[in-house]
């Protein structure tokens, strides 16, 4: 039975990446390499106000003084920043006013990915999802902007926000992740090209899910986008992010920043299904996914919840974090990270408890297969003033196959007596008892593994919005093989 299970696990590693196609779109590029000129080129191209260029240059100059961090449990081939194209945009003939004017190639691309940018179709459904579609360096289309603006919600590409709401951008950009934060955040701050911007005014509950879909298409480019979400007092928004990239032999760099600001009583739910191209079975190619995501619960009773399903990228380096500044604020982190073949993931979260009675929950489920390495790295810090705070963390790892690795590096720091911090973790393979139990009841070993893996990840998957949960479950099976799941 064990050998049969092993065979299935072998097969599991044969799953193919289904989004590896390339679309032939006319694209314009910035000159290869990174210099102040590249930054000026991007800024000019985007017709940015002066403060943006200044911010970029400050970030770039700071970046020059930094070195790439080496502390993560990752083997990263050296990145030559002079060989990357930092800006690539599908050529557009004129300003878009309706969906009909979007390049049909692009529409077809997104349809192929299962993302419909056609509002009419969506409206027929009960609840729509507003999508901001980002291809390479720029946002190509944001749907439902008008419907949302009736509620006072601003949902647009970052470039549009810079043009139309510079005061908001100026106020919040870099306030959670300053450009000095880390190496890749500095790089992003210097060269970011687009991204999504979302502002929910006081007391508004966003009537639909907001979503950004990122797609890398052009070769030799890096994608550097930036997302900024501001929820004013009492506001609520659920935000989803998805991403794919073509299959290529070289590694491509994706260094993004996501900043969330939640004011008093506000709630932001951020869900990610990350499915960048993971490289082939021999570890060739794939995306380097180096992302800085952080939210701040600024006001009392605010809440930020991160949910992530990480299946793609050859290397993932990402720690969605919460700064719990307001009293009674809540931070949550739910994660399923799957690595296969030669993928490497070093992911987790930071919960910084600063306010009184703050609470946080961390549920992390790692699944390693093939020759991959999957690490959870997390920090829970209860500062001296965060009295009566509470944290519960659980980080489990599941190992499929004898050549993979699963690691947990939890850092716990407690500086007052009234707080309670609990952490537990287990690492094991799929239990032979469970497998036997299923098979004894006529479930094939293959389906049984799927069943067990899905059950294992259920706690996280159920946190996802419905539209995403379906995709995530599908992804989980694709990552692990054809029919598991």
């Amino acid at each position, binding site marked *: 039975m064990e050998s049969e299970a092993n065979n299935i696990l072998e097969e599991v590693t044969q799953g193919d990446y289904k989004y590896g196609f390339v679309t032939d779109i006319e694209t314009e590029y910035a000159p290869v390499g990174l210099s102040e000129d590249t930054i000026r080129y991007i800024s000019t191209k985007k017709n940015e106000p002066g403060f943006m260029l200044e911010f970029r240059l400050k970030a770039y100059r700071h970046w020059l003084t930094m070195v790439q961090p080496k*502390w993560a*449990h990752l083997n990263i081939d050296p990145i030559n920043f002079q060989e990357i194209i930092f800006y690539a945009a599908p050529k557009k003939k004129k300003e878009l006013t309706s969906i009909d004017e979007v390049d049909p190639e692009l529409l077809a691309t997104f349809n192929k990915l299962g993302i419909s940018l056609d509002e009419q179709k969506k409206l027929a459904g009960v609840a729509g999802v507003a999508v901001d579609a980002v291809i390479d360096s720029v946002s190509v289309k944001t749907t439902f902007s008008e419907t949302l603006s009736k509620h006072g919600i601003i949902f647009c590409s970052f470039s549009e926000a810079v043009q139309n709401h510079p005061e908001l951008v100026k106020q919040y950009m870099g306030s959670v992740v300053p450009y000095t934060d880390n190496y890749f955040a500095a790089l992003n701050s210097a060269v970011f090209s687009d991204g999504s911007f979302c502002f929910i005014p006081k007391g508004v509950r966003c009537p639909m899910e907001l979503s950004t879909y990122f797609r890398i298409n052009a070769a030799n480019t890096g994608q550097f986008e930036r997302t900024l979400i501001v929820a004013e007092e009492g506001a609520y928004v659920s935000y989803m992010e998805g991403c794919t990239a073509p299959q290529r032999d070289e590694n491509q760099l994706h260094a993004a920043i996501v900043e969330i600001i939640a004011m008093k009583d506000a709630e932001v739910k951020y869900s990610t299904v990350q499915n960048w191209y993971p490289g082939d079975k021999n570890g060739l190619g794939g995306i380097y996914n180096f992302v800085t995501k952080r939210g701040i619960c600024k006001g009392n009773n605010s809440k930020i919840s991160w949910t992530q399903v990480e299946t793609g990228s050859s290397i993932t380096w990402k720690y969605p974090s919460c700064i719990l500044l307001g009293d009674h604020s809540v931070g949550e982190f739910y994660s399923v990270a799957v690595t296969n073949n030669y993928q490497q993931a070093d992911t987790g979260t930071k919960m910084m408890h600063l306010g009184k009675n703050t609470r946080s929950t961390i549920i992390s489920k790692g699944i390693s297969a093939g020759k991959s390495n999957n690490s959870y790295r997390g920090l829970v810090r209860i500062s*001296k003033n965060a*009295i009566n705070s509470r944290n519960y963390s659980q980080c489990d*790892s599941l*190992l*499929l*196959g*004898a*050549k*993979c*690795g*699963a*690691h*947990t*590096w*939890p*850092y*716990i*720091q*407690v*500086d*007052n*007596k*009234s*707080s*309670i*911090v*609990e*952490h*537990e*973790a*287990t*690492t*094991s*393979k799929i239990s032979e008892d469970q497998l036997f139990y299923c098979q004894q009841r006529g479930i094939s070993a293959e389906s049984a593994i799927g069943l067990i893996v899905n059950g294992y990840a259920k706690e996280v998957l159920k946190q996802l919005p419905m539209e995403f949960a379906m995709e995530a479950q599908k992804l989980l099976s694709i990552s692990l093989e054809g029919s598991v799941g």
Partner: protein
Amino acid sequence: MQTESKEPVTQKRFIDLFEKNRAFLSANDTPGLNVTRVKAMASFAKLGFPDTSMESWRLTSLEESFERGYDYHLQPMEEVDVQKVFRCNIPHLDTAVIGQLNGWYVSKDVPLMELGNGIIMGSLAEARKKYPQLIEKYFGTIADDTNDGFTALNTAFTQDGVFIYVPDNVKSPKPVQLINVIHHDENLFLQSRNLIIVGSNAMLSLVHCDDSYNHQASFSNVVTEVHLGEHGAMDHYKLQNLNNNSTLISSVFFRMAASASLDSHYLSLNGGLLRNNIRVLFNGPNGNASIYGLYLMDRKQHVDNNLFIDHAYPGCTSSETFKGILDEHARAIFNGHVLVRRDAAKTDARQSNKNILLTDTARVNSKPFLEIYNDDVKCSHGSTTGQLDQESMFYLRQRGIGEETARMLLMFAFADEIVARIAIPQLRQRIEDMVKKRLQGELQICEQCVLHCSTPEHPIEFQIDLGKI
């Protein structure tokens, strides 16, 4: 020539000291040992002392300790009245007590005891002269000096310490107690090196006490290597009861042959700055290592337990159970690292760290870290930090138990999970008393040797305060 006066601890000072006294230090070395020594010094010259920029020393700063300045002695100080230092009766030396004063083996009359059953114990300096081959075979083989400056320094300066050899198939009839007392009128930097060899099917129970006798500052860098043979077993107790001005860097390396079994207990009751490096290497299949730790810290005491368990062979079991109660400004750090290598199938590894904070100024850092490269394993870790359980407290108060007594009772119960594991009944009783006294704030430094006090303390009972009902 052989005494250095009070100077801050710097890398340069020790490099110079070594150069100046190279011939003296290596006078009794075999060629092999000398190579080890010189290599270690080169290593130290490269590594220096650790500082907070290193991940494993990030939370333990030695700066303050280093600046105090210490004497360093290259030979034992003038004869001291041993009876005066060990205030309790020290039984005749043919019993299982080994005394060390400031890191030097005490009795010069009988430097090495050879017992009828083949057990050898005594001074390492003497053993190096008498059994050079045996020493050369084991010395420095597991104390890795390539990435730890303190171990490298200790190896380079090795002079004396304790040597214990238990031959194959011999069970040590009674526990061996090793007491290292620090007693000096000046600040003292001391290093001692212990080598313990337990043969196949052999058994040793070792109680290793670090005590200080006055309030003078001291800095100890102690390295102990323990080799356990096939089916060998060891019951190991490390008691730390030092004054608040003392700094202790204790590194113990265990190498476990197939099916060897280790129970190790770290009981830290007092100490200024304690750093326990505990390294376990499974060098054969089916070994078992259980490491327990209890730390009760107050004032500005600092304890840093740094564990590394290397599962290099299949079928081994390890557990780390560390518990601590922190009062006032105390700080505790737990760093548990379990590595399961590619070939170590059927590994069962558990880590647990539980802390109670009694004040808002006490601090805890816990990092239970698992690194796993094999799928056929059972590994888990847990860490909790909090205060005394309010419901348990309520339960006790409701039954008429005074608040202070109830608190004591709960803290004692918390600590007892570790204390109850002590297999030597006398020692367990004694530690129970010490823990109770410690929790009541009565235990100061050194209560002298643990097993042989001629006037045992009165047992402490929890009085139910009827007057307050």
